[in-house]
């Protein structure tokens, strides 16, 4: 949808993921979309170098979020939200409706 503007489909998926969940790590995103971890990491580096995302270490995991100091963040997120309205119900359910509320250990997901 925004591939032509963003450069490739992986970066679009990453940005949709962050728009939906607020944060993400390469392995998790890789599993969600069945894309190689390297491919995700490469695009995260590109986004981080451009100041669009920032990363933090949480334990041993590098977690990425939108950079709240990116001056065009509001406009970028508005565009992503608008583009996501055009996703099919299937895509929405498959990729962007994962459970995010807490779940006690031991309970089935």
């Amino acid at each position, binding site marked *: 949808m925004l591939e032509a503007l963003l450069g490739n489909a992986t970066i679009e998926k990453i940005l949709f993921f962050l728009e939906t969940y607020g944060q993400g790590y390469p392995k998790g995103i890789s599993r969600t979309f069945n894309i190689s971890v390297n491919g995700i990491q490469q695009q995260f*580096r590109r986004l*981080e*170098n*451009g*100041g669009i995302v920032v990363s933090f270490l949480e334990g041993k995991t590098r977690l990425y979020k939108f950079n*709240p*100091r990116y*001056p065009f963040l*509001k406009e970028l997120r508005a565009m992503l939200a608008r583009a996501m309205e055009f996703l099919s119900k299937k895509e929405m359910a498959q990729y962007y409706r994962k459970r995010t509320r807490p779940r006690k250990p031991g309970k089935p997901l």
Partner: protein
Amino acid sequence: MKIEWKKITIRDLAAVISDVLRKNGIEVTLVGGACVSIYAKNKYISYDLDFITKSSLKELVPILGELGFKRKDGRLFENPECKFLIDFPAPPIAIGNEPVLEFKSLRTKRGIIILLTPADCVKDRLAAYFFWGDRQALEQAVLVTRSNRVNLTKIRKWAEKEGGIEKFKIFQKKLVAKA
């Protein structure tokens, strides 16, 4: 002038880098923690020099290479003799949602440094405190404010616009507290 990389100060290094790039037609502006070090007279030492430039990194590589700085990772440059890292974050220069359009020109014996004004340096640090709750950034904003003349009324108005008025009040309390 011979450069002793092991002993160079952050201010001198900023001037050396700015000067050599300017002579090659590349304009850079110093932002971030290095501005704090300069304005707070080294009461806080940053080990990163963040320069913003509209030039491409490819243009920088040969020029910085002559000074012994090699591209390390992404936008970072490193000289093994020097304790400071040089970074070139992506433009534009912005603090919160606002573009920064006015800068300070600092003349040193090593050359001229174009950098954030003290007021924008304080706002830059406060923005990090507002967005990430970074207490170090808060301390740095206090250091710069104490060592320079900045218009706190304007900064307060900016903080209101950025939704950081409660944290600005904490900053004000810190300013009047004993150092």
